[in-house]
């Protein structure tokens, strides 16, 4: 584990949500350690995204929190209560699943009231609450429909209303948007975030989509091999990744082979400071990891680089610049990019205040960035 911040940005803002502590969780499946000493604290009302590639352990962490998996080691503590002996049924955690999980034999209202009925609440108040929640998710007019009569986005909205109906201590979202098309995904993403902020409910959101994680969460916890690489706010995670894994998994980074000398590296003839706060990178061959916006370019007929690809992204244009064997991605303002043709000779320069360095990769891998 490289870094685990335990103070969320909204820790002082909410009282409704619960404080969640996942303490040195270990969970193995056969010879695979899905969680390997996973430790994370989530403040009340905070929205934390667990982000990582398939098999990194993010869903296992969520399922351990929900009570669907028992950890081999470690503790799950919610508001000071150790949940070791508390079954999923008694944990008061609302969950929205990746696959459509509405009960096919019940209409929308009965799906939403299910949790309340399990808590022996009377039919009248339960239905009234379901009505309120369906209005909140914009599905008041669908109350009598059955799941098979709803679109995927509508089903996930109902699932969200159903999870919120029980006023859970923690809301768990297991890739709830992954089965939806891009437009619906964007709409529901905004709706979930808005509801979460309005209700101030502690939320854990599992995703492999960095855009979702960065746009929705207060903090993003990047996971790899059952543990945390870095936990930070989206802005810090993107701008100040502390490990090569995070730099490459979140956003796009180009790897440029460099030689370190003290606290500096030389990139395309330009000396740059190494990012502070890192462990001593040591002298010798390393790779610098640079975002597209860390570079600027100057058109120069004598420049060593030339443009091999060009993609219009709206406000910016992304160029791929080949310098010798190294390929880097550079973002320029689109009005500047419009004048640059493929094959144009340019001189890339680093405009970032410092750079992240990582152990050298093989040259074949180094030229493939991000």
């Amino acid at each position: 584990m490289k870094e685990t911040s335990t103070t969320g940005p909204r820790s002082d803002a909410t009282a409704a949500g619960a404080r969640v502590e996942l303490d040195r969780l270990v969970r193995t499946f056969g010879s695979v350690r899905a969680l390997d000493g996973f430790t994370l604290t989530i403040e009340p009302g905070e929205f934390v995204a667990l982000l990582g590639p398939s098999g990194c352990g993010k869903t296992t962490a969520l399922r351990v929190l929900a009570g669907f998996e028992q950890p081999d080691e470690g503790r799950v503590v919610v508001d000071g209560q150790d949940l070791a002996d508390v079954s999923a049924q008694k944990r008061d955690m609302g969950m929205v699943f990746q696959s459509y999980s509405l009960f096919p034999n019940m209409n929308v209202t009965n799906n939403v009231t299910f949790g309340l009925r399990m808590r022996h609440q009377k039919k009248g108040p339960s239905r009234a609450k379901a009505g309120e929640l369906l209005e909140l998710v914009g599905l008041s007019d669908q109350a009598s429909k059955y799941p098979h009569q709803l679109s995927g986005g509508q089903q996930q909205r109902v699932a969200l209303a159903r999870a919120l109906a029980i006023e859970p201590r923690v809301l768990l979202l297991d890739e709830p948007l992954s089965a939806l098309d891009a437009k619906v995904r964007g709409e529901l993403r905004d709706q979930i975030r808005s509801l979460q902020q309005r209700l101030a409910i502690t939320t854990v959101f599992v995703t492999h989509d960095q855009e979702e994680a960065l746009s929705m969460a207060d903090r993003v916890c990047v996971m790899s091999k059952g543990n945390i690489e870095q936990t930070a706010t989206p802005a810090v995670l993107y701008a100040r990744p502390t490990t090569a894994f995070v730099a490459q998994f979140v956003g796009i980074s180009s790897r440029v082979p460099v030689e370190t000398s003290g606290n500096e590296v030389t990139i395309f003839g330009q000396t740059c400071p190494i990012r502070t706060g890192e462990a001593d990178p040591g002298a010798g061959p390393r790779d610098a990891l640079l975002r597209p916006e860390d570079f600027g370019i100057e058109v120069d007929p004598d420049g060593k680089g030339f443009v091999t690809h060009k993609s219009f992204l709206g406000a910016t244009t992304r160029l791929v610049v080949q310098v010798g064997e190294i390929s880097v991605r550079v973002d320029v303002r689109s009005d500047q990019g419009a004048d640059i043709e493929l094959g144009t000779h340019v001189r890339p320069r680093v405009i970032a205040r410092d750079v992240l360095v990582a152990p050298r990769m093989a040259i074949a891998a180094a030229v493939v960035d991000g």
Partner: protein
Amino acid sequence: MLLAGAYFLLPLYAGLKFALQNDAGHFSFFAVKAIPSAQGFSAAFTLSMKLALVTVVLAMLLMVPTTIYVHLRLPRVRRIVEFITILPIVIPPIILIEGVLGSYPGWIKSSPYLLSFLYVVLAMPFVYRSLDAGLGAIDLKTLVEASRSLGGSWAQTLRRVILPNLRPALLSAMVLTLALVLGEYTMASLDLWETVPVWIVNFQQSDGHITVAASMIGLIGTWVLLTLIVSLDRSQSRRSRRKAGTT
């Protein structure tokens, strides 16, 4: 295809024609009308229905939790369980009944309900396949976890979530079990109990028209039930297709 059709339909036609004829060879419903009052039919029918009811209940109590458990907790052993359920088809009935008689307690051996235990074993292939297909058609794990996270106990989850969504499969399993019990001859005969099939064979010597009429009614009744299952399956498939179309 015509040949196959003839192979299947000609005996049925012949049986039906014979059942609807009087001794003089004229069309008549006398055999059908005479079935309820035929000697021994009422007792045999009552016994068959009791056995069918007990068998269906026993089979469901045994196989529903087992199949759900295998799907939820032991998906890797599904093929092994499937293999085990096929065994009653390949093991001769005489071996099955000898095994049961040798292993069951004495009090049940003298009861006709011993047959229900045997029929549960015989029905296993059909019951397991029906339930397995039904469970495979729903996202069981997610539905169970959704129910549990919302506060549902195992019993509530079973009653309110799993069983309602398994209704066509349950119905299919029950009807197949019923058809098997109402048509089973060998074991009842070996165990010396007069169920409807045994009565048909015994009474044949007294009046062939009546026994053939009873066989035809049994056959048509089973056919109606199976048609009902197929139409329910189709309705479920349409629902699944509509669901797939909306996602």
